[in-house]
């Protein structure tokens, strides 16, 4: 057995049902997933670390529950992968950085605890851009991850490892985080569903911070139903996170319709103008997607986001500013890597940080430190916060006209490794369509929408704050009608088949 699902694509809910019906054991599924992850590590490098013992022990526990006829959690026995910035008690958590390569967390992230409480089996920690800063997974301090649809190309980032392993169908579910597009862009690149929830919907406790006012954890899954299941498990108020919101979590998975009658879908005029100037095939793909939505019964309405064009500049002031402060703690005194030598404690701090951080992280720390410094704080940081207000109110106005927004998730299909790594600005521009939602704190997802030159592309669906259900419902109807992801098998599978 080379994969958990040789013929059709596995989903978490299908595996769960198989376990419930005792057709397959959690242990058997976990072994298969671990084996698959290992055999695909060569071509994909999706994982920083696999956790076979922990996973198998927990899988056997689930099998025990099944045998005893005990009640099972929503994700009982389903193998999942988590981005290596979620702390897992007793395990290494590197955040893709040399500075944390030997850090073993003494506690677990709330979302990880919730996943495990629902019966999920964490098989490994996935690769990522260092400290979640990047859009290609090439900023990992360890190795780049590759795209299962074309291993010469990037899987997107920063949650590239999670996207790659779900895209390869090694596991049906992974956790990622999204600060400016780090779930949605790799989801688009790897042909999976990626959900960035409303800011405050999911606890950030135990998730290593990049930019605290923007970071959100979310599911990256084989299909919309899995995304709905996972969101329902991980969402909710956490007393350990002051910014988590105490709003009831609806049963997302039980509210997934097959048509869109009565739904008003906003199409963003400014984004369409922008996409029309780029790749014609990509523009055509999105046009087709909107038509498909309309055919399902939705009413398309034009909406405007006049300040969305300022999103990138706003984001690259706010996120680095917060990051410069969040990453100050990595100094070699209490945990993580220390670079010793002559001199006092500050010399140690300086050496440790200079050696421990990669290029992109350094760039953002410097940029953010500058944006907060005396004389520039008002001109940069405060001004960015004000523009953030304008961007947020654009969405408020747009949602007065529509129920959800449909728009591009990306401005291009997955690109080749190295294509943008020398050009930070080109890399930053990858998040052009995803950043405004992050700044507004509203939920957005990417769903497979077809292929450009045999490379996957995602459609972005955006909803008002705390209306993830609405967005998942639209995505589900679209997915059921189009079946874009299910229609093809990732290249890494056919290559693997040829090799064996």
């Amino acid at each position, binding site marked *: 057995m080379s994969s958990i699902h040789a013929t059709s694509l596995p989903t978490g809910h299908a595996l769960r049902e198989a376990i419930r019906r005792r057709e397959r054991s959690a242990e058997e599924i976990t072994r298969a997933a671990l084996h698959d992850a290992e055999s695909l590590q060569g071509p994909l490098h999706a994982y920083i670390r696999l956790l076979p013992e922990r996973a198998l022990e927990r899988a056997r526990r689930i099998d025990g529950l099944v045998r005893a006829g005990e009640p099972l959690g929503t994700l009982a026995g389903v193998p999942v992968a988590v981005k290596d*910035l*979620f*702390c897992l008690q007793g395990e290494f*958590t590197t*955040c893709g950085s040399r500075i*944390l390569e030997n*850090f073993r*967390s*003494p*506690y677990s*992230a709330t979302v990880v605890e919730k996943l495990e409480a629902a019966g999920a089996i964490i098989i490994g920690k996935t690769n990522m851009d260092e400290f979640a800063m990047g859009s290609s997974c090439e900023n990992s301090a360890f190795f780049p991850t590759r795209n299962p649809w074309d291993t010469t190309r990037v899987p997107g980032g920063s949650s590239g490892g999670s996207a790659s392993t779900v895209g390869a169908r090694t596991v049906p579910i992974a956790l990622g985080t999204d600060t400016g597009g780090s779930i949605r862009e790799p989801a688009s690149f790897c042909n999976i569903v990626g959900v960035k929830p409303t800011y405050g919907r999911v606890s*950030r*406790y*135990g*998730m*290593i*911070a990049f*930019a*605290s*006012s923007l970071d959100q954890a979310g599911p990256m899954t084989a299909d919309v139903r899995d995304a709905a299941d996972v969101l329902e498990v991980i969402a909710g108020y956490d*007393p*350990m*996170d*002051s*910014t988590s919101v105490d709003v009831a979590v609806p049963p997302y998975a039980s509210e997934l319709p097959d048509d869109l009658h009565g739904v008003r879908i906003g199409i963003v005029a400014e984004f369409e103008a922008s996409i029309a100037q780029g790749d014609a095939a990509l523009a055509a793909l999105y046009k087709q997607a909107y038509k498909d939505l309309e055919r399902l019964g939705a009413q398309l309405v034009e909406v405007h986001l006049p300040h969305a064009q300022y999103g990138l500049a706003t984001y690259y002031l706010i996120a680095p*500013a*917060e990051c*410069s*402060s969040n990453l*100050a*703690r990595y*100094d070699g*005194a*209490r*945990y993580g890597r220390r670079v010793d030598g002559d001199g006092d*404690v*500050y010399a140690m*701090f300086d050496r440790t940080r200079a050696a421990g951080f990669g290029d992109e992280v350094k760039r953002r720390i410097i940029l953010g*430190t500058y944006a*907060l*410094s*005396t004389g520039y*704080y008002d001109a940069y*940081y405060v001004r960015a916060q004000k523009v953030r207000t304008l961007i947020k109110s654009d969405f408020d106005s747009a949602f007065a006209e529509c129920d959800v927004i449909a728009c591009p998730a990306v401005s291009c299909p997955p690109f080749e490794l190295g294509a943008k790594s020398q050009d930070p600005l080109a890399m930053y521009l990858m998040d052009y369509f995803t950043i405004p939602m992050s700044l507004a704190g509203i939920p957005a997802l990417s769903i497979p929408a077809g292929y450009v030159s045999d490379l996957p592309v995602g459609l972005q669906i955006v909803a008002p704050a705390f209306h993830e259900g609405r967005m998942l419902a639209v995505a589900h109807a679209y997915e059921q009608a189009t079946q874009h992801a299910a229609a093809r098998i990732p290249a890494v599978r056919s290559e693997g088949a040829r090799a064996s």
Partner: protein
Amino acid sequence: MQQAIERNVSYQPVIGLEVHVELATQSKMFCGCRNVFGAPPNTLVCPVCLGMPGTLPVINRRAVEFLCKTGMALGCDVAPFSKFDRKNYFYPDMPKNYQISQYDMPLTTGGSVRLASGKRIALNRIHLEEDTGKNIHAGTSMAASEYTLIDYNRAGVPLMEIVSEPHIATPEEAEQYLSALKSVLSYIGVSDVKMHEGSLRCDANISVRPAGTSTLGVKAEVKNMNSFRSVVRALRFEIERQTEALTSGERIIQETRNWDDARGVTYSTRSKEQAHDYRYFPDPDLVPLTLDDATLAQWREELPELPLDKRDRFIAEYGVSEYEAGILTEDRSAAEFFEAVARACGDGKQAANWMLGDVRRSLEKHSLTLATSPVRPAQLAELIRIVAAGQISGKAAKEVCDAVVAEGTDPQAVVAQRGLSQISDTEAVGAMVDDALAANPESVASYKGGKAKALEFLVGQVMKSSRGKANIDIVRELLRERLG
């Protein structure tokens, strides 16, 4: 003439104090670790207060309550909207290399501290922040140390910073300010206010200027003063140093100076190599505070009467002197004890006499305090009542008081056990007087013959026959009466 004036110019100090107070909450400011002094190093730490990756702060409600109550007690305005900011700088005892503090929207502004003299020192603000850990420098001095050891037990303890306006005129007034502040904080129970344990710490901003002028001079910030006494000494030293410097035509530079208690001097810490730009910005891990009127009203309701208000009321209500009232109100529980005694016996003056006299002496003798002694206010009130009623003698009363303070026994029981009650019944005493007169005719004669001293002999005889229990005032009165 002009020059002569310049040479003889006298300088006056301008002093402002920044007082850091550790709040006496159960747990730390942003996590559930116990907030207590003196635990073994790094035993009161968790991922949050160690600044581990992924951790988040959550505000301790009690710390906010304590700060607001302090503000209310000092007449400050509690802000309707307040927030926490990050103060960014690198220091090894600070786990995140930023301190969560309050920058432009502190919880309270304004207010004042009322000194015993009646003068009020205006406050600028009070804000809430987290304490840092402690560095232990291995070796004899910081400069000679090979390495530093860090204990993070104190990291994250809630810290309140009370900033005064530069309205303090003398070192002595600074001491009065600290003393008044300490008293208020201890009354409302928000801190242990122990300077030697670091739960109350004080930095001073001080400058001098020619008397009668109003422009401020260049200030020095003085740190590392570990007692009220060292604050006074350090400020005196600085006044002298700055005055001498100005008199001899030198310029004062703005700097931080540490107080060296052993040498009795302040010394410049030299500006650190570190660039200082704290880059304050709102902490995105926390949400703003908007305290509603009901909560504030409830906190206000819970405030006790403050020391100087109590002092003034004691003077008015119990007729005690300002000096007595001052001592009686130094400590809140002692003041409440006094008041309970005064109310129960109905004589505040007597209650004060006893509290400040025999009770205090007995406590000292038995190495007790009012808190550790078993004595209850009702017992002292009873003692005062039976003395007033003449049931026991003044001498016996001291003995009873001592027993009550040491053992907590009821005064009546002590009197009964030790047979200390006096006979004040005129009929019974009259019979004893008659007996004595009959038995000592020669003394009666000599008294009548003009020898006043003979009366004292007769008094002695009655006391002897009563074995000391007769009320001596009544004996004397009856003898005089019968001897005409």
